[in-house]
């Protein structure tokens, strides 16, 4: 019996989906609310606003792909479902960025880790970034609501061997670790979340809020890339988009969307890009600045027994031992997790070529990989990156600062210590010039002396945040603490771009919870 594809079934049943690539003539569409983007923010907003009786159009630049398209192969998933075929990089090419691009945004391809916004982040936003009403207690009902909606619960099965090593290392060393909560229902524990869930177990926006909004009458327009917002005085009066093919190449047809209210939910690179291209008023020059990435280091470890890191829930354990160790704005902390291990991901995110690389790949199933996600945006020497417009789109400049490299060195040491404690035979910090290390003592010395530099050290990111900060102080923020524009009556932002710093945690649940709160308030306003 084939797996049922609820999206295909919904379209057959009459959902209002328009693939803009099929259009040959310019069109104008109208609704109460137009939402740009269908990821964690856009999806949740669409469901809440539709349930409130408002007409909604969701505009998505990427294609509509669903479980029948998800064949568990990187060669199909990366071009179909990721920005720039998973090859996006910062301007100097020092950081590779994984960000989703299809309907459902990054929720279609993420690894399902669901963590409430850490309290130290909320406290720092209130104290240093003029954010109001987002205390732990105030957010609790919204997180409760979204956890229920998306079936978020602690992973009840044994972690796979890759995660088990993280757990064992923490146990041996007396470090904190937590069993991860995941947004899954009936998970098959296969390990291919990053290529789109083939069995619709992952409760991404693609199979939850967006279908619910479409059932209730919302319209989804895919392959329509928003170019700019048209505005006059304190009103947005239209969104202009162009039709694009599956590779985001323009097809020459224009779309105009008109609404009472507009929501930008295009993610922390594209929301600022649209704002910059639209030349929105920005007296304090905030748009696109303070963009955060959780820049991430990798440490490989060779075990004698099979790790099979491609198999099983990709993330089920994390360690927060080092995230807030030195206080929010002290030395940069880092969160320890593991990634799924698949051929293209590992082949491209390791170093070298020829025999040495081939030998590493031959140990593929003995390879455990630990990652350290560095918490950026708090320390004075960690002010994030900046989105700038280019001829064909935008680029993100992200300087890797001294404070980052200090954290990187500590993180490599922590990862090596953890991996040896878990029984690794060898550890390989993924940075040019580093050999296989055979003991914690050897690793400690080598890591203390290793050369760390952009392009020499492999740095990756799967969490793009900031660039359109929230807060009440106009000098610090573009939108208020409800995501409402300081400058336009009918514009809100509902995605990770509103975070004033990084989170120190995987972002999806923070976006779900805060969007649920903000979209509910917007629905009340628009229906009053």
């Amino acid at each position, binding site marked *: *019996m*084939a*797996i049922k594809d609820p999206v295909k079934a919904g379209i057959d049943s009459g959902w209002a989906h328009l693939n803009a690539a099929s259009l040959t003539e310019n069109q104008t569409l109208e609704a109460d609310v137009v939402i740009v983007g269908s990821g964690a923010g856009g999806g949740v907003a669409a469901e809440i606003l539709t349930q409130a009786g408002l007409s909604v159009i969701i505009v998505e630049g990427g294609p509509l792909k669903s479980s029948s398209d998800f*064949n*568990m*192969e*990187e*060669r199909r998933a990366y*071009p179909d479902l990721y920005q*720039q*075929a998973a*090859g996006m990089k910062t301007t*100097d*090419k020092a950081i590779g960025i994984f960000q989703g691009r299809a309907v459902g945004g990054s929720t279609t391809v993420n690894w399902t880790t669901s963590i409430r916004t850490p309290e130290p982040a909320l406290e720092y936003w209130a104290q240093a970034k003029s954010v109001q009403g987002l205390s732990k207690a105030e957010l609790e009902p919204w997180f409760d609501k979204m956890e229920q909606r998306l079936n978020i619960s602690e992973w009840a099965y044994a972690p796979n061997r890759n995660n088990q090593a993280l757990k064992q290392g923490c146990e041996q060393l007396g470090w904190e670790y937590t069993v991860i909560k995941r947004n899954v229902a009936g998970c*098959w524990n*296969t390990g*291919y979340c990053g290529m789109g869930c*083939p069995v619709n177990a992952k409760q991404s926006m693609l199979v939850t809020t967006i279908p619910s909004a479409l059932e209730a009458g919302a319209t989804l327009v895919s392959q329509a890339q928003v170019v700019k917002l048209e505005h006059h005085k304190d009103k947005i009066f239209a969104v202009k988009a162009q039709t694009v093919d599956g*590779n*985001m*190449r323009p097809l020459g047809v224009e779309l105009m969307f008109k609404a009472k209210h507009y929501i930008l939910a295009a993610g922390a690179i594209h929301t600022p890009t649209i704002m910059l291209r639209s030349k929105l008023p920005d007296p304090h020059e905030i748009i696109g600045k303070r963009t955060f990435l959780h820049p991430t280091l990798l440490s490989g470890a060779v075990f004698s027994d099979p790790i099979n890191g*491609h198999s099983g829930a990709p993330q089920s354990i994390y360690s927060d031992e080092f995230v807030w160790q030195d206080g929010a704005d002290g030395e940069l902390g880092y969160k320890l997790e593991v990634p799924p291990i*698949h*051929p*293209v991901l590992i*082949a*491209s995110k390791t170093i070298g*070529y*020829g*025999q040495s*690389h*081939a*030998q590493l*790949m*031959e140990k*593929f*199933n003995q390879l455990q990989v630990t990652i350290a996600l560095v918490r950026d945006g708090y320390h004075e020497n960690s002010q994030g990156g900046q989105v700038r417009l*280019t*001829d*064909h*789109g935008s*680029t993100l400049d992200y300087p890797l600062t001294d404070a980052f490299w200090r954290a990187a060195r500590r993180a490599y040491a922590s990862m090596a210590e953890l991996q040896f404690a878990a029984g690794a035979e060898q550890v390989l910090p993924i940075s*040019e010039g580093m050999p296989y290390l055979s003991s914690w003592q050897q690793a400690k010395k080598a890591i203390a002396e290793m050369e760390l530099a952009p*392009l*020499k050290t492999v740095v990756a990111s799967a969490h793009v945040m900031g660039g359109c900060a929230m807060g009440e102080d106009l000098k610090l923020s573009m939108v208020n603490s409800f995501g409402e524009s300081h400058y336009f009556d009918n514009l809100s932002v509902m995605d990770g771009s509103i975070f004033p710093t990084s989170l120190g945690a995987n972002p999806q649940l923070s976006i779900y919870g805060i969007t649920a709160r903000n979209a509910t308030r917007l629905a009340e306003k628009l229906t009053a």
Partner: protein
Amino acid sequence: MERRTFITTALAGTACLALGVNYYSTSDISVNRQQDSKHRLLFSVLVPVFLDGALPDVAALKRDAINRTLDTIEHTISILPLDTKAEIEQLLEMLEGRLGLLILTGSVTPLMMRNQAELVDMLQSWRSSYLDLMVTAYQGLREIVMASYYASPEHWSRLHYAKPSFLEDMN
């Protein structure tokens, strides 16, 4: 100097291709059916160096794997975003031109005429260069080749990796 300016300057005034399909086609590489495809011959020189030790030992299988990888590389480049595509095209055109080769490798000898050790030296010098341009050239080519090779299920046998078969079993 910005990379683009550097490359544009380097290319100005030269249209002389150092790498000609007619001179250097070999029986191992299926260039004939793809004579018009850009950069295939260039990659046919680089792929065996990047993938030394990963490619199959048996000659016929090795040839198939290289050709499959060349097909994937061509597809990969075709779907790159315009800015990235323009950058990689400029790099490849430099490697196919005498002046570009001289600037990037210190020699006008076409890559096809260099032996494995010389090609390894070239990659190593880029890899360890103090110029970001050279390092990004190395990393860009490396990433395209590695991703294109390991994208194919036919190349996973040494990894002992296979995707689950339940989807096929159910259909």
